[in-house]
């Protein structure tokens, strides 16, 4: 296969398209095209409310994100459901395109560019970014666009670059930090170039250096202006997860990097370290991203682009190495490819079969149609967005509860309802939150909430003076709380 400027991009885009298509096809064929995960339902619900109210959400508990405006705007034209699928898909492909252009701009040779992009498009974090409605697909694209346009000398493109960075900054503090780091990296790199080429008596700054300095100043101001958007009151209630399970997709992370991608990236890191001055830009980005990922695990979607560069570099180096034994070379390359593909396949398998499935949708649709409107539903917090979006019912607790003022109390009370066998106690808590319905699924009964049969609330359900089973299908149960609270 002879790689040219034209066909490389086509091949990579085709690969990205095929990987994402597999996911969409599985959902389409076996899951009635139901959206994946919980996060997508949250965004869809907010966007729907924005369209209905024709204004921003006024709720004090609402955590603003510009993505909701993007989703609402496009959703207004083509429908929220389609927009939730189309936006990440399009922005994912556009990100690949811009990333390709950036690599070309950085004069990465075509073979290496191809491998880097291929590793990127099969990485679990990229699949997440491009297949599930999330708040990162737009800022990732904007940041990449900003980097690409910034490297151009055209003044119009420079202004566009500023807009791209400014827009990305509004998405979160990490985007601000990233934009600022990019500018600082540019300045340092330019400075090094200047020092290595000339030895002037007084310092001379190139156009790119000056541009970066101006950008840095403007972006800092924009970041300061965006500060109120960044800092939402959040009470840390849920226990910290295992760092490996947070970071590595093969260990169960939804937004994670494949283990072989990491191994290759580490190899690439050491190989590139020899020329660290040449690759200062990427090393600084890596540093800031790894540091940030400890505070915000979603940074992994950005990190996957950097990791792809390191992994791609290592892959090409290993392949081009002077191997003494050809059979070992072939077997090693085969294993690396299998290892990378293994993470992708297992991630695709996991994500494509993720909840909600048809049964969950059916039960929530039933709840929507056969229950009284505006009555509060109780379930595990991870099910809250589905109940909100599909059953169109308010919930006692959802995955954003840590942003609510009474987060700890709500969480503790929900735990008490789940695990207490004291009917009086449970009744008083149900009354406290005006709960009328309880929705439970198999996942909750198989370890998410309860480990054993007849544990806590499952035991109390036997009291038919308080609870009435109104739905029971395929392990999903809906219980009505008698003498419901209005």
């Amino acid at each position: 296969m002879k790689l040219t400027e034209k066909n490389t991009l086509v091949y990579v885009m085709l690969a990205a398209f095929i990987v994402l298509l597999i996911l969409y096809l599985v959902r389409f064929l076996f899951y009635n095209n139901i959206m994946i995960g919980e996060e997508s339902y949250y965004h869809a619900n907010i966007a729907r409310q924005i369209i209905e109210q024709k204004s921003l959400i006024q709720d004090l508990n609402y955590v603003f994100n510009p993505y909701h405006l993007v989703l609402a705007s496009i959703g207004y034209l083509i429908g929220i459901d389609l927009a939730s699928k189309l936006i990440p898909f399009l922005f994912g492909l556009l990100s690949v395109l811009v990333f390709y252009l950036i690599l070309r701009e950085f004069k990465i040779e075509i073979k290496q560019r191809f491998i880097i992009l291929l590793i990127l498009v099969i990485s679990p974090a990229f699949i997440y970014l491009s297949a599930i409605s999330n708040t990162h697909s737009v800022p990732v694209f904007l940041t990449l666009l900003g980097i690409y346009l910034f490297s151009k000398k055209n003044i119009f493109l420079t202004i566009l670059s500023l807009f791209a960075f400014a827009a990305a900054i509004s998405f979160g503090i990490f985007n601000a930090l990233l934009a600022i780091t990019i500018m600082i990296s540019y300045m340092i790199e330019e400075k090094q170039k200047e020092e290595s080429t000339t030895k002037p008596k007084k310092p001379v700054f190139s156009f790119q250096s000056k541009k970066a300095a101006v950008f840095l100043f403007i972006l800092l101001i924009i970041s300061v202006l965006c500060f109120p958007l960044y800092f939402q009151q959040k009470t840390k209630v849920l226990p910290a997860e295992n760092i490996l399970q947070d970071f590595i997709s093969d260990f169960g992370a939804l937004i994670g990097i494949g283990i072989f991608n990491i191994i290759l990236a580490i190899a690439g890191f050491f190989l590139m370290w020899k020329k660290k001055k040449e690759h200062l830009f990427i090393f600084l980005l890596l540093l800031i991203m790894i540091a940030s990922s400890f505070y915000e695990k979603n940074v992994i979607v950005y990190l996957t682009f950097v990791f792809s560069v390191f992994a791609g570099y290592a892959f090409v180096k290993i392949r081009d190495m002077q191997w003494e034994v050809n059979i070992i070379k072939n077997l090693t390359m085969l294993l690396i490819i299998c290892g990378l593909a293994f993470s992708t396949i297992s991630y695709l398998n996991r994500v494509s079969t993720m909840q909600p499935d048809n049964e969950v949708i059916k039960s929530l649709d039933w709840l929507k149609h056969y229950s009284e409107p505006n009555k509060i539903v109780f379930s595990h917090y991870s099910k809250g967005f589905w109940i909100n979006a599909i059953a169109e019912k308010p919930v006692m607790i959802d995955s954003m509860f840590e942003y609510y003022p009474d987060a700890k109390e709500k969480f503790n009370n929900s735990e008490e309802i789940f695990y207490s066998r004291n009917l009086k106690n449970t009744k008083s808590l149900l009354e406290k939150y005006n709960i009328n319905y309880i929705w439970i699924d198999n996942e909750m009964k198989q370890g998410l909430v309860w480990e054993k049969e007849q544990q806590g609330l499952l035991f109390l359900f036997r009291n038919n003076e308080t609870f009435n089973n109104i739905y029971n299908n395929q392990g999903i149960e809906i219980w009505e709380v008698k003498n419901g609270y209005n």
Partner: protein
Amino acid sequence: MLKKEYIWLALIFGLVLGTRLYFAFQTPYFSEDAYFNIRQVEHIRETGLPLFKDDLSYSGRNFLFQPFFQYILAFFNLFMPLNLVCKLLPNIFASCLIFIVYLIAKEITKSQGAALFSSFISGFIPIFFAETVNSVSVFSLVIPLMFFLIYFLIKINKDAKYINHFIVSIIIIALMHASAFLLIMAFLLYVLFIKIEHLKQSRAELELIIFSTILVTWLNFIVYKNAFLVHGQFVIWQNIPKELLSQSFSQLSILNALFYIGIIPLISGIYLIYKYIFKKKNRKIYLLMGFALSELFLLWFKLIPLKTGLIFFGVIFVLLFSKFYSDSILFIDKTKFSKYKRIFIAVIFLIFIFNSIIPTISYTNRVIKETVSKNEIDSFLWLKNNSDEKDVILASLDEGYLINTIAQRKNVIDKNFLLIKDAEQRLEDVKKIYTTHYETEAIPLLNKYNIKYILLSKRSMNYYDIADLSYSTDEKCFELVYNKEVKIYKSLCRMEEK
């Protein structure tokens, strides 16, 4: 000359295998842990596939393991009785270690005497001998193969054919047991030593190490992917409950090492490591040191079970001893004491007999005594013939595999905890059922796991330090259906919660 060497090796092999078989055939049965592999072999022979989804263990669970060893046994089971296969083959595999130790030692020392002496010692490493004699242990094959791999790595610079041998061996080991990771750690440490000491790294060697690292990592991720998803990095500790973890992954102590490895290999090994870190350079010794130090690191941080670590340690230290021995002989030859060389060898041999062979025999005797007795087997057979196929049997942790394999019934707990979410709870519940004084406490737990029969053997009585079930006097709820050396109670009552 060559023939004499072979004769000596054949004699050592005969002696080691003979001693092993003598112990192995002291009893027609096996150690409890062996019954997991026996069941897998039976299943492979019957269906062609290993038993990954099992309805009996934990009353239904999935197994994760590499089945290559079981396939080998199943293959031999096609034309040999299973009992003979399980007694004979693991002991033949384990005895083959003497040839490998001989080959490596000869490469390291260039001395036939040192190589033969080391090969003899390797046949009687207490922990390796005792732990593989009657347990159908995968280590009986993994250990010789791993050291074969080291031999191939030493030889690849001399002959390219060893590259192919290495590739085949590493694939087999990776398909056999997760301990292949130890080998990878050892190789990486070896590369580090070579770098630190500014020795020239052979290209082919480095390529093989890269290949092995990727292969072993990938294969293990494929096999244990689900375990990683469920347990995260705690897979390393095999999801063993905390209470048992301190027993399996206990701290390495000098006394343990002295007993399980032997005093001569241990002291000479430590001295040699010191010598080659600070005074001399030798790439072959660095390869062994890489192995020893990676084991030490893993044992120190309790990342591998103590027994597994000590088995590897034992063989490495024997190999290091060979170098120590040849160096000592060379040194003595240069001194006025050269005429007493034979006395020196005799003294070492005597110390070896006292410190390796005697512990080997006493340790193996203990292991054989702890093997399942006829009475216990009879009780399991009674359960097989008198209980319903769906009945759940409660037995102690050690007897879990026996319930599945001999009685062919469901158990509540056994020693394979991987993928078991409530392992900790089960262990606690089983202990409570055996030790509680109150039937109001026992019956709900018996109901919880649908337990129909409770097996009370000497083993479980010792384990839980009880003489009988305290609540068994209630004949309405607990019928004594089997009363010999082992007692079996039938649980008859259900307790409804209100």
